[in-house]
């Protein structure tokens, strides 16, 4: 296992270099000069200043020199400085990732707690003599969740719970009047998390339900029943363990997609996460930030995939790596 992990990690390096080359090439191929765009937004008429700033950020160097400078600094842990914000790219990414990580983690937690639980529950009651209204609800509710776009629900929730009722904050990560504590952060997380996770809760609910129903039809489950094991043990030890394999894969991929795909929710809730940062930086041709963010996200995907693979082995002992 250790050799496997080490080999996977080493294979990441050429992949990241390839990613950086592609992103660098694409960012340079885009029309528009980052310094001119930056100054144009402030309506500054000073060609000397434009040239001085281009010098400062190395934009007057030949492209290979620019790339090599960036790469060598990157290996020294220096991702450069944002043209637009002046801040170190590493600081910007850390802050953006911290904010996105918090909402993505909360979303995955919601998916696990609500989606998986309800999915497993609805599989357990499947074909049982429960009231039809309940079984239908358990079967149809996730379809409804998947059908309604999360961002539309988010806007609606802001109007109801934020503006009309005043129960929850409408945007941002903290209330400047109340301080910066965990409870305040939790309050700010509720609406973005629901908006971000809604469709995934529905999807995982259905996935858990279908998988569990399939698993409960397996021979080894029948054997467990025949052995006279208590129902809870059959369902939640033998059945659930097998069900978890595809669910873990789904959660791993979901976490990765939430880290990069939360832009719309970050947009609606003015949540200063990595998605909003990446889109703003791309629009403004803030190349150092775009490069740094892309490498970070690619690395995260790779690490997450690796983590999921390792979890497979833990959950399902049949999975082994040579």
């Amino acid at each position, binding site marked *: 296992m250790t050799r496997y992990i080490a080999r996977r990690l080493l294979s990441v390096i050429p992949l990241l270099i390839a990613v950086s080359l592609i992103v660098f090439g694409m960012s340079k191929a885009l029309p528009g000069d980052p310094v001119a765009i930056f*100054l*144009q937004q402030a*309506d500054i008429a*000073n060609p000397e200043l434009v040239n001085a700033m281009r010098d400062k950020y190395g934009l007057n160097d030949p492209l290979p020199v620019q790339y090599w400078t960036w790469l060598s600094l990157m290996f020294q842990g220096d991702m450069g400085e944002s043209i637009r914000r002046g801040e170190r790219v590493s600081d910007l990414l850390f802050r953006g990732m911290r904010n996105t990580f918090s909402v993505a983690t909360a979303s995955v937690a919601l998916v696990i707690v609500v989606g998986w639980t309800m999915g497993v529950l609805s599989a357990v009651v499947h074909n049982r003599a429960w009231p039809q209204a309940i079984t239908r609800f358990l079967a149809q509710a996730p379809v409804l969740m998947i059908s309604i776009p999360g961002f539309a629900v988010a806007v609606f929730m802001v109007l109801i719970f934020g503006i009309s009722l005043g129960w929850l904050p*409408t945007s941002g990560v903290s209330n400047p009047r109340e301080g910066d504590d965990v409870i305040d952060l939790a309050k700010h997380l509720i609406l973005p998390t629901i908006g971000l996770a809604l469709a995934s809760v529905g999807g995982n609910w259905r996935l858990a339900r279908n998988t569990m129903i399939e698993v409960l039809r397996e021979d080894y489950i029948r054997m467990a029943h025949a052995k006279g094991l208590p129902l809870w043990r059959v369902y939640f030890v033998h059945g659930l363990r097998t069900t978890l394999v595809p669910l873990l894969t789904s959660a791993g991929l979901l976490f990765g997609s939430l880290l990069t795909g939360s832009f719309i929710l970050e947009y609606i809730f003015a949540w200063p996460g990595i998605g909003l940062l990446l889109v703003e930086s791309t629009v403004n041709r803030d190349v150092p930030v775009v490069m740094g963010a892309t490498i970070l996200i690619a690395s995260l995907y790779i690490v997450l995939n690796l983590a999921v693979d390792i979890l497979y082995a833990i959950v399902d002992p049949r999975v082994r790596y040579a």
Partner: protein
Amino acid sequence: MILRSGAAAVAGGVGAAALAACGEAEVVEKTVTVTVTEVKEVVKEVPVETVVTKEVVKEVPVETVVTKEVIKEVPVVEVREVEVEKVVTQEKVVEVEVEKVVTQEKVVEVMVENPKADSLVIGLPVTARVDDLDGSQVYEFQTKIHAFCTSESLLLYDYQTQTLKPRLAESWEVAPDATSVTFTLREGVTWHNGDPFTPEDVVFNFNRIFRDDDPYHAEGTFYYNGFAQPFYGDTEVLDGRTVRVNLTQPDALAAEKFGALDSSYMAHPPSVMEHGNREYSTDVDKYVGTGPYIPVELRPAELVRMVRNENWWGPKPDFDELIFRLFPGGQAGADARVNALLAGEVDVALYTPATRRNDLFRTPGIGAKWFSNFVLGYFYINHTFPLFQDNRVRQAVARSFDRVSFYEATAGPTVLPWGRFWFPGSPYLNDAAELDYDPAQVASLMQDAGFSMGGDGVWANGDMRAEFKIQYSGDPGAPPDRETFWMQGLNDLGFSVELDAWDPAIRADFDSGPFAQQNLNVGGWGVGVFLGDPAFAYQRWTAGDFFALSYMDNAEMNQLYQDILVEADADNRTSKVHRMQEIAADQVPWIPSTVSTLGAAWREEKVTNVTSGATQYSYPWLYKVAPV
């Protein structure tokens, strides 16, 4: 009563004469006239002051306990004269004393646990540096709002009156030959750390801002110093309160440029030397200014927190604490800002979007305003394009845009439709120099230019058809409403116009982009003007880069610009600027479209009004916010 007495006397005289004529015994009647005077007292109430002392308990923050007495006059009784009867023959006014209560409020100080009770939270769209607190280096308009709370310039350009006002300098004088400007500094000004503000500080700052060879200039990025730098020679200290800026060439605008321009803000020299001039840092001790508020917390992408500077030289600002809550730029941040205001998370929201104006106007307890500012929206017009080489055609095109109808239908108060070459309410505005919508004049101008209406409904002059493109930056499938509206209007008036989309990212490329002269027909652009003085704006006529207002090179206009640079007489300057606008209306180097506005909305439970302040972006409105 007087009438009745007179009638009795006349009747007595007539009766005596009649008796004598009849020969009867003579009875002498003596007419006695009695005048009865009734005296009626009219009560007139005259106020005398009675002082009632009333204790008002006011919570004040623990850190800033301030004693103040408020005297408030409350007229309790209204004095009214009452006429009782009309038969009064003589009025004797009896003065009756009534109470006029003067309430004297004595503020009793109570220490409260929450020191942020008098905080004001302002929602701002900010995407740039959170540490941009040095007014001479900040570049983003929105960021200036909090930067200008902490740092100050020598003078203030008052956009309302378009005059200079004292700030860190009490007075100023431009030399008669316009080769220097002398500033007399205000007494008793201190930096936030308590150090006195001195003439040597001004020398340090002007050198770091305007001299390329200054060691602290190299570290900084002074985005807006380009207007003044070519004129700067040096600064010398004349005495303990006076400095003189010597110019390299005459400039009648020296006081504006060096006293009030965005780049001329003062930073505490030892702090600059210790912390560097431009190194990014969220350390609040890095920047030390003189302004009414002191920064105490900087959280990137989240907030800037400031507390009141109790030692500020000006009137005491209203709020103990200002918190600028930072939102993303664009529509996302704008919506979130309005939502936060409606939910009570912020007290004031700035740059409120047009799309939410109905929400703001209809919500009880929310006040909203849009202030016009000094950003003129306009269209470029390429006068070298064959169709547009005749200025009458350019005028016709400019007069074909029904700005008022369009902006009333789409933008409400958030922009001001504008067909003139200077700003509303300004003494420099030549109101007669306009290019307002006028279909009849469009036809007349085209006919004067030799065009006649063709069978296809398009103006033509020989082989030349009135055919061109309106260019815009953006998605080819989603042209802006403004350009679409105007295109339809032009087509209705006999032009053949198409829309042409360009990638927004290359619009700043003036060699090959959409505004390159060989590519441009008509295109939307826009410009900010840093001061309300036309010399700054019209300088762009001659600037020759892509921020210039026009490609056009007009000898009279160029000369007028050079003249007003050294024209110290206000009336002469105004008349020259008026002439510049006449030339612009005649030559149509660009087509004015709008004057931008800055939207502000606020919760009336916290503030009663927000004024636009004296500057465009602007520092003083923050303490002109009227608290409840």
